């Protein structure tokens, strides 16, 4: 077993909101050809027939208002360019501008969906991506919005949901937190604070306060060395007042200020780094829940369908066809931060040699591997063992990322410290 895996005691996942890979990291390709990003030739047709190229004009705030459509039918248009459902259509990522036009009928505004950030505008995200492991092939789990995609991170399935509807947990699969607890280990969802709350209401109903904490508690747990085996961190989802003043949304969901999200990512990274023992024993995954309707050039690959019982009917997809969860959603940024990760490694995507594809079901799948590293499920009662080992088809088929931890540690003095000027 590599030393990095042997030393691993904590997995932390920070899930941000609604930005595509190309939008945030695509420009890194100019300095590193291994990045499957943008070379400036990518384009989309607008509704006037003009071709709209990608451009490095993304701004931190005020540009993607209204919020680009990222519900199931809208994402279908983005991926398939408007080709009607049916056999024989080809995914081409040519419908992003058309989709954004539908919201305001404004041609100029629709072009902004092709804008991306230059690396120097996102020093934290690109700094971590170029220091640690960046995934060319991490996709949202469903070509749809937040709630169902986040469900894949928590359960390894969305139980048939492709949208934002309320859903009741009906099993048979437990959340990854409950499975970790069954193994006698610890897990927590850290939401930012009360006014921001969580997007994981289903678990909140069942497990408050057993598996929930706030971001202040996360910081305290990092400092005191009491971080659970598995932690899932949620950013601040809205602007609100608090006793200490204005709390600015840090989730980077359009139209929230992207730089505040950078600072939040840095705060999570620093909290782990600043406890030396924790730094040496933690893998931090920074990932986005979905692309938020923003352009990415990589066609989402097919995947193993989810359980038959979870297939979504045409009525539920509202896109004119049923969905078996056999295609991933649009690609999102994902970075694995650990001193045990090889410096500046790019994990190839599915269209590249030795390519791999990940999605949010990879999160519970990886946590299960981590727990099973030194836990024998045969110590559980038959009933609990069945619950503990229960995984959706999607989770069973999902790739995992613990193999990225190596025998060698990156030295502290080569690791970036992002300091606000």
């Amino acid at each position, binding site marked *: 077993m590599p030393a990095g895996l042997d030393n691993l005691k904590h997995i932390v996942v920070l899930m941000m909101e609604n930005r595509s890979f190309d939008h945030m990291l695509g420009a890194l390709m100019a300095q590193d050809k291994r990045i499957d990003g943008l070379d400036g030739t990518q384009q989309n047709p607008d509704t006037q027939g003009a071709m709209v190229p990608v451009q490095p004009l993304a701004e931190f705030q005020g540009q993607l208002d209204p919020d680009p459509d990222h519900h199931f039918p809208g994402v279908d248009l983005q991926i398939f360019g408007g080709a009607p459902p049916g056999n024989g259509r080809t995914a081409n990522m040519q419908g992003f501008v058309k989709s954004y036009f539908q919201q305001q009928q404004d041609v100029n505004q629709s072009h902004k969906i092709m804008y991306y950030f230059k690396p120097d505008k996102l020093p934290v995200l690109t700094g971590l991506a170029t220091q640690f492991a960046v995934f060319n092939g991490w996709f949202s789990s469903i070509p749809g919005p937040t709630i169902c995609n986040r469900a894949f991170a928590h359960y390894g399935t969305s139980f048939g949901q492709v949208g934002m509807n309320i859903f009741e947990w009906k099993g048979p699969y437990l959340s990854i937190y409950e499975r970790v607890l069954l193994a006698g280990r610890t897990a927590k969802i850290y939401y*930012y604070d009360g006014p921001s709350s969580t997007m994981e*209401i289903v678990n909140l109903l069942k497990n408050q306060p057993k598996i929930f904490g706030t971001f202040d508690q996360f910081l305290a747990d990092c400092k005191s060395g009491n971080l659970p085996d598995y932690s899932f961190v949620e950013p601040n989802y809205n602007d609100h007042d608090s006793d200490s003043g204005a709390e600015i949304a840090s989730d980077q969901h359009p139209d929230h*200020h992207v730089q505040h999200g950078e600072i939040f990512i840095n*705060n999570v990274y620093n909290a782990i780094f600043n406890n030396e023992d924790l730094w040496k024993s933690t893998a931090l995954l920074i990932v986005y829940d979905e692309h938020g309707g923003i352009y990415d050039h990589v066609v989402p690959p097919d995947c193993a369908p989810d359980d038959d019982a979870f297939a979504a009917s045409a009525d539920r997809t509202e896109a004119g066809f049923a969905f078996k969860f056999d295609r991933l959603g649009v690609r999102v940024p994902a970075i694995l931060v650990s001193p045990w990760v090889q410096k500046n490694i790019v994990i190839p995507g599915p269209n590249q040699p030795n390519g791999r594809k990940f999605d949010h079901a990879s999160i519970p799948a990886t946590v299960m591997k981590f727990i099973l590293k030194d836990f024998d499920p045969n110590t559980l009662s038959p009933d609990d063992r069945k619950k503990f080992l229960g995984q959706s088809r999607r989770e069973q088929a999902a790739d995992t990322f613990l193999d990225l931890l190596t025998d060698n540690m990156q030295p502290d003095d080569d690791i*970036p410290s992002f300091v606000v*000027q």
Partner: protein
Amino acid sequence: MAKATAKAATNSRRRRVVPIPKPPKEAFNKDRPAGALLKAQALHLRHGLARYVQKVARHLHRVGELLAKDLSTIKTEGDVSEYARQVTAILHMKTIKRAAKFKQAAH
């Protein structure tokens, strides 16, 4: 609450310093119209609250019955144990869940 704009914590272990810009405070806007995600979150929270209220109401109804119980009707050890079981179940939620499991198993 830890501020999102907090500066990087100082640490004795030396790292390569990368300066990053200070984000603007002007980004704060409580009056920004809530998007679909936040509206959905509010809906989900209300649903959660409704579920919680139903649960509490069931318990409150039961609490009312137990408070109104005429203790003079408790004559036997069996009567006491049944009353004690019900009150304890109210006071300890976990006990309630366990009792429910036993009840389900018995049927």
